[in-house]
Each structure stands twice: as structure tokens, then as C-alpha cells.
């Protein structure tokens, strides 16, 4: 189908975009890569009167590391993350996650910020934001503020962002330098939305016990979440298949996934246990410099 008529507004700077958002508020949508919004408009599920196109805005496409975080501008294309040698070296889990987003032509256009704010509960980037304890930097014509990922995601496609606010930058906190990692998902076909997705990070102390553990899940609730119960099973223990099985079981116990056309709740819980177990085993094998 064709979208309903709208005004296309083309700001050249963040300040211009913020002024337009303040002026049009509820009757405006921000257009980033358009890979989620435009399908919704083509189906007429979204009919914004005004579309604020960020593609001509300068200064939202930086990829920068500092000692403790990777900072990405909201308009960084997913494909540019996938192709960044620095990200492949210093935050490889982000690359592994992005390679599972849809297909090359979608990632060429799709942006980091667009996916994060669209907030699909099965999407990879919100999952990574939760797993890496990311910080969202929001701006409006009124003020600037920063929000932790766990507070940003509030429900199904619902975030903490106000109608006049714009996500300008996100900081992904870096895990310990040598930690192992894995982002894995089960989908019906390559590139489809995940039925269940998992992101795990794992590191060991010199006595080989688990010193750092992150277990995050997507597709099992209205928003991605960290599973403290699974992390507690892991911390301080010697890694191994039995421990990973117990962590997977703890994750399965901790979630109450929805049933929908793609999968039953019981199947999603089953996948949760299996994926967490497998991802932890993969992550353990990727810990650097182990004895």
C-alpha cells in the first residue's frame, strides 16, 4: 500500500530537528533509516502528519571508543557497525548481534538509534543495550538528559522518550577486556525477528571462577531484560556444562514469555533454557588468555 500524505521536514542540524519536534510534537514522527517506520506507514498503521527526516542532519554518525564505552551517534548505520574493524576487535558481540538483523540491504539503511527507539522486544540492538548497560542520551529543545537502558525500555514498543525528545547518542559500556561473549537467536528464517534472542558475557578470575556474567534475553516479554537469577547462578562458580545448564534453567524459570502466532509460551521458555546454555558455552570458549 501507499502511505497517507504527510509533510516531509528536512532539518540540517540537531537544533533544527529539536525545534521541529517541539513545534509538531504528537503529530510528527522522526525518520531515521525507515526500515520499521516506513513499513508501518505503508500499511497505514502509522499516519504521522509530519515526518522529520534526520538523514540530512550532520554530526549524528560518529563511532568512538573511550576507555570504558563505545559511543555511537543515533544515525550510525547498522552496516557501518558491522564493518567497523575497531568494533570487531573491541566489542565483537555488537557485530555478532548486528549480523543477525534482517538482511544487508536493510542494514545498509537501518540505524542504531532507529532500532533502539523503535523498541521491538525481539530486536537485537535493544537486547545489546540491556546486556551492556547502555546509556541513552536524549535531547529536546527544553533540556538534555541521560537514561539507563533498563529505565528506557518500559513496555511493548514503549520507551521513556517524550514526544519532543530525540535520541542523539548511545554509550555501550565495555565489558572486561578479555571476557567471552555470544549473541544467539532462534528465528524461523535467516533475518526474521527472533522468537527468542540471548546475549551473554562471561569472564573468569585467576582461580577460574566466574567473575563477570551478563545474561540478557529478548523475545520473552514486552521488552528485553537481564536475568539476575541466571547471573547469580554463574558468579563465583567454575564454568562448565553443568553450571551452564543450571543457568539456562534459572533463566527459563525467570521468564513468562507471551504466546503468539510465531510460538507458544512453553516453546519460548524451552528455547530460553537451550539458548542460554549454548551461548554460555560459546562465550566460555571465547574468553581470552585463559590457562
Amino acid at each position, binding site marked *: *500500500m*501507499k*502511505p*497517507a*500524505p*504527510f*509533510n*516531509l521536514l528536512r532539518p540540517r542540524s540537531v537544533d533544527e530537528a529539536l525545534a521541529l519536534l517541539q513545534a509538531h510534537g504528537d503529530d510528527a514522527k522522526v525518520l531515521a533509516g*525507515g*526500515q520499521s517506520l*516506513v*513499513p508501518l506507514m*505503508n*500499511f497505514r498503521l502509522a499516519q504521522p502528519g509530519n*515526518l522529520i*527526516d534526520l*538523514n540530512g542532519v550532520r554530526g549524528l554518525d560518529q563511532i568512538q571508543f573511550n576507555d570504558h564505552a563505545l559511543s555511537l551517534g543515533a544515525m550510525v548505520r547498522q*552496516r557501518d557497525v558491522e564493518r567497523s574493524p575497531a568494533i570487531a576487535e573491541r566489542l565483537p558481540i555488537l557485530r555478532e548481534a548486528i549480523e543477525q538483523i*534482517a*538482511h*544487508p*540491504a*536493510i542494514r*545498509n*539503511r537501518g540505524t542504531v538509534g532507529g532500532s533502539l527507539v523503535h523498541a521491538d522486544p525481539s530486536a537485537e540492538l535493544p537486547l545489546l543495550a540491556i546486556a551492556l548497560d547502555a546509556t541513552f542520551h536524549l535531547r529536546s529543545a527544553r533540556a538534555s538528559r541521560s537514561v539507563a537502558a533498563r529505565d528506557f525500555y518500559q513496555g511493548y514498543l514503549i520507551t521513556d522518550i517524550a514526544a519532543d525528545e530525540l535520541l542523539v547518542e548511545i554509550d555501550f559500556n565495555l565489558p572486561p577486556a578479555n571476557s567471552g561473549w555470544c549473541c544467539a537467536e532462534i528465528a524461523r*528464517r*535467516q*533475518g526474521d525477528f527472533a522468537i527468542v534472542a540471548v546475549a551473554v558475557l562471561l569472564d573468569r578470575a585467576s582461580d577460574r571462577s566466574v567473575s563477570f556474567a551478563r545474561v540478557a534475553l529478548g523475545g520473552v516479554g514486552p521488552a528485553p531484560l537481564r536475568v539476575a537469577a541466571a547471573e547469580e547462578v554463574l558468579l563465583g562458580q567454575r564454568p562448565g556444562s553443568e553450571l551452564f545448564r543450571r543457568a539456562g534453567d534459572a533463566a527459563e524459570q525467570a521468564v513468562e514469555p507471551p504466546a503468539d502466532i510465531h510460538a507458544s509460551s512453553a516453546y519460548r521458555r524451552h528455547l530460553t533454557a537451550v539458548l542460554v546454555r549454548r551461548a554460555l558455552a560459546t562465550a566460555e570458549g571465547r574468553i581470552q588468555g585463559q590457562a
Partner: protein
Amino acid sequence: MVERISITLKVNGFEETAAVEARRSLVDFLRHDLGLVGTHVGCEHGVCGACTVMLNGRTVRSCLLFAAQADGAEILTVEGLTKGEDLHPLQQAFQRHHALQCGFCTPGMILAALELLRDNPDPTDKEVRVGLSGNLCMCTGYVNIVRAVRAAAAEGQVR
């Protein structure tokens, strides 16, 4: 009176100027305003890949891009691949390996394959399948498409 936006862009090397409605998709602009009907419209929500074209050297879904957003850009469609009567090496490989039946997906497949081979001149079967995973074909079962892309890669003529 619907407001129109003036755009100037290059399509297959030719400069085009037009006034388009904001909601005009790039694929409708190519087909209806420029008469370039080689690019096909399938699902209109980014799933099937039939409308794949290149924007500034990268594949995009032209059903998910508004024509106004292509202002100043360079677009390549399947029509831009042929030199006179000579088919592009990928097109020749598709023909030789029976990589199409109805042909609806073929223009998108060719553009996606072109990007794949520019990034990775000698892909494995799996890499071809992943590279073309965003393009659906209802006829061939994909086997001959993968064969054609690998044959084109082996000949080394794809630029």
C-alpha cells in the same frame, strides 16, 4: 493542491529532475515517473527484496525510501547494468544457469548479488545464501541462483 518537492538525482548515470509528492516512494518514482520498470514492486514493506536498487553504491529497498530522500543521490537500477545490447556478467550467468523462471525477483537478486561480489569476490555457497537472504524467489528454489552467482564470481568479470 498537493505540495511537491523538487529533486535532482542521477539514475544510471543520467541526471533527472522532478517534482514529487513527499509520499512518493523511490520505486514508484523510478517506475511511474521515469518509466524504469525493470525494478519490481513486490510486498511494499521491505520483506521481499524485489525492489532492491543501489543508492550511492549500497543496496536499499526502494519501497522503504521516499523519492525526496534520494535528492542528490546516485541510483543504480537493473537497467543501468547493461552496456547497449550486452548483458552484465551477472545477468549472463543467471541466463546460463537458469537462475530465473518468472523473473519477478531477478532485478533485485542481481543488484543484491552485485553488492555481495563487490564486497566478497569469491563467496562460498553459504555466503551467497546469506548475502541474498533478503531476496525471496518463489520459483527456483534458489539452487540455480546460488550457482549463477558463484559462476559469475569464478569468471571474475563482475565490477
